[in-house]
């Protein structure tokens, strides 16, 4: 049986950030229990960035590292997102074009809120498994950006931006998926949604309870499918979809109490050993929606000493809702390959926005939302931030929209 999974991976964490504590204070939010939310900052897109630029900027280093022959083996570009830029034309068309991929390539977008990244990964793995032709690759990108900033809500400090790009193929170097080792749990619920391009609506309590319920139920199905599996001993490490760290920590605690009746100190020991490292990047980037689980995966690999191949348990949740618990085994060189992408340095190099800069950028960002017929993205109103973040860096940015067609340029 051919091994299939993630052969290369990279995170684009944006070029600007905003402090979560500052936002709590500026908005007058209740800070009494701030620490258990485990939020440091969030990534913020500039007005000339959108989910397309995030996707391309995450994927370009991976594509550039391929030889011409390898690049032409990419037979599918699949983009998971909940912030698409058009009802019909998928984001993948822009991504395919600006990355210069072969025209002999499938191209489509998948959507299921924050589950979209995992839907794309599993779809790509299925396409590769289904072909009799050896060496096929798929480019999978989970990309998102916050809709209009919801001022004075508890969502706002967590609303991040960015993307994770992955190349899937045979004999992967990062993570081999355990074939068939998946449990799912899905049902209709209105916990969070994007009913308009400029609106994120929802109920955080309902979403949290649904996440907890889905973790328990999807793992229960996994345990039925994978005979002899045990949550405590089967997985060397864990990574969960991460809207914010406190939610992940709470979900882990709830599951361990439910499965094993563990004491708080035992839960904490397990959390520190298997899960805490996966939260470090997300605490700085914020919620990257469909990409959040894969940011957690990179954080785990970059911060955990992996002593040889390690089995990871991965949990994906998307509001609405769909969820999946699945597993895979890291490759011997996973740490070296992910480390070489310089993700920690990219996060560190973001420009920390002042409150005034953040307010201006949030306001101007409304123009990048879908539905605008003609827009020119002039960085002049935030020239200083643009120069610090993007100018001369060779990153893709939005130039203008003409008759709804998005046109990009390299910064």
């Amino acid at each position, binding site marked *: 049986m051919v091994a299939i999974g993630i052969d290369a991976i990279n995170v684009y964490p944006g070029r600007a950030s905003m402090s979560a504590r500052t936002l709590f204070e500026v908005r007058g939010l209740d800070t009494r229990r701030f620490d258990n939310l485990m939020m440091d900052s969030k990534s913020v897109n500039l007005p000339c960035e959108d989910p397309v630029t995030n996707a391309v900027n995450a994927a370009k280093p991976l594509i550039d590292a391929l030889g011409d022959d390898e690049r032409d083996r990419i037979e599918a570009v699949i983009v998971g997102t909940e912030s698409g830029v058009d009802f019909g034309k998928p984001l993948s068309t822009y991504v395919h074009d600006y990355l210069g991929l072969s025209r002999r390539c499938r191209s489509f977008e998948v959507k299921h809120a924050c589950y979209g990244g995992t839907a794309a990964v599993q779809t790509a793995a299925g396409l590769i498994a289904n072909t009799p032709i050896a060496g096929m690759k798929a480019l999978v990108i989970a990309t998102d950006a916050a809709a209009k900033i919801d001022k004075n809500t508890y969502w706002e400090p967590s609303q991040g931006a960015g993307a994770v790009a992955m190349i899937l193929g045979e004999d992967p170097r990062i993570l081999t998926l355990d074939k068939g080792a998946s449990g799912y749990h899905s049902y209709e619920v209105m916990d969070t949604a994007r009913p308009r391009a400029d609106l994120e609506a929802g109920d955080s*309590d309902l979403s949290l309870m649904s996440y*907890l319920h889905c973790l328990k139920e999807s793992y229960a199905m996994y345990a039925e499918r994978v005979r002899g599996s045990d949550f405590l001993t089967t997985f060397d490490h864990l990574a969960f979809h991460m809207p914010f760290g406190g939610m992940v920590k709470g979900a882990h605690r*709830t599951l361990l109490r439910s499965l094993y009746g563990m004491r708080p100190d035992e839960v904490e020991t397990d959390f520190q050993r298997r899960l805490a490292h996966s939260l470090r990047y997300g605490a700085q980037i914020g919620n990257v929606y469909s990409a959040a689980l894969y940011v957690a995966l990179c954080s785990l690999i970059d911060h955990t000493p992996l002593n040889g191949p390690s089995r990871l348990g991965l949990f994906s949740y998307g509001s609405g809702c769909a969820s999946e618990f699945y597993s895979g085994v890291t490759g011997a060189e996973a740490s070296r390959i992910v480390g070489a992408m310089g993700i920690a340095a990219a996060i560190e190099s973001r420009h920390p926005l002042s409150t005034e800069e953040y307010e201006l950028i949030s306001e101007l960002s409304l123009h990048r939302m879908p539905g605008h017929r003609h827009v020119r993205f002039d960085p002049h109103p935030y020239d200083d931030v643009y120069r610090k973040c993007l100018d001369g860096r060779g990153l893709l940015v939005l130039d203008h929209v003409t008759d709804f067609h998005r046109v990009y340029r390299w910064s």
Partner: protein
Amino acid sequence: MSQPATSSTPAASDPLLEVIGEAVHAVVPEVDPTDVTADRTLAELGCNSVDRAEIMVAVMGELGITIHPSEFSRDLSIRSLIALLRKYE
């Protein structure tokens, strides 16, 4: 004006109110169980969304019931919560 007594109005010594009060105190030790009264919300008591979910899980565990997530909503008052729990007793 005092609220008329109904089947969903908890009495001062309502055992469900006590279960909720103990769960709140266990999750957020700064909150005294006696401050957990029917006319307040968990958010007013300083419990954030993570705390509220943990309190609900603890209460369901203590009562041995499972409430489907679709029944929960933000800003649920403790009076409404007791009424919800009573449906599952």
